[in-house]
């Protein structure tokens, strides 16, 4: 579907939402210790984006267990949400925003928080010669 601009999108398509992911709003307020019908779907979502390791190959249960709590906390940390470990309204609202299909966490390394930064310190050597560049990689 390509449109020159959004007003060219047929009214019937304009405000379709993502039915599958919108169903996640039913989990608003869920927290550790609960058992909620369909909660396994949200575990599959978190595994899709790397928040639950691929090593969990079994069938997910509907229990709000430690696996899910850890995934929610890391997700909230990555997206600078309040780290509650619960599926609060803000977290659910963020989950259903359209996104890139690439994971945020790969091989256990959170691609959004490995803190990799390079900073350059320029130390001018005495006598004003060519500045020496130091790179400090964290």
């Amino acid at each position, binding site marked *: *579907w*390509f*449109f*020159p*601009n*959004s*007003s060219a*999108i047929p009214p019937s*398509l*304009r*405000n*379709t*939402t*993502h*039915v*599958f*992911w919108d169903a996640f709003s039913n989990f608003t307020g869920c927290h550790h210790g609960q058992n909620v019908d369909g909660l396994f779907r949200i575990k599959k979502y978190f595994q899709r*984006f790397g928040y639950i390791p691929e090593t969990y190959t079994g069938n997910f249960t509907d229990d709000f267990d430690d696996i899910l709590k850890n995934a929610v906390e890391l997700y909230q940390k*990555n*997206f*600078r949400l309040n780290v509650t470990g619960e599926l609060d309204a803000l977290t659910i609202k*963020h989950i259903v*925003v*359209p*996104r*890139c*299909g*690439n994971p*945020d966490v*790969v*091989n256990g*390394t959170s*691609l*959004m*928080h*490995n803190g*990799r930064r*390079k900073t350059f310190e320029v130390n001018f050597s005495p006598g004003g010669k060519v500045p020496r560049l130091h790179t400090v990689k964290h």
Partner: protein
Amino acid sequence: YTLFPGEPRWPRDRRDLTYAFDPRNPLTDEVKGVFARAFGRWSEVTALNFTNIESFTTSDITIGFYTGDHGDGEPFDGVLGTLAHAFSPPSGKFHLDADENWVVSGDLDSFLSVTAAVDLESVAVHEIGHLLGLGHSSVEESIMYPTITTGKRKVDLTSDDVEGIQYLYGANPNFNGTSPPAATTRERDTGSFG
């Protein structure tokens, strides 16, 4: 910015990269022009060049629009949700969800009333970052931030994006860090520094 584990990047002898579209996708020149602009945003700031060729089987980067399960183990999911994905170097695979309402002109105004309109160039610039080796960024304004709200257009690289890509490939000698060089007057520095 972040990188994929192992910091994969295109090798030094392959900095003139080619890209092609899946011949099964009937794309107009306008749509192809969106991708050319998106590639141009990255080549303006680093020592990479991108050329569109016809041959889908020999190009470095292959671009296709597909629906649902398209054979790479990462099925698309209909309107909204996941919009596209791309693989780290040297894979070159770039897949977009054909079920989305892709807006190609990027006009912002009438976007706001339409919740299911997705700006094609914004998604293309992001996914090209992955094709070149960038992971997701926690800087919300950056191109490499994982989510994009519908009706939003985000195509300009931020310093976070530029820092990441220049860490991988160095800077474009003509890029002075503020306004990208005019593509038509690009020349290579032949001074004593080479």
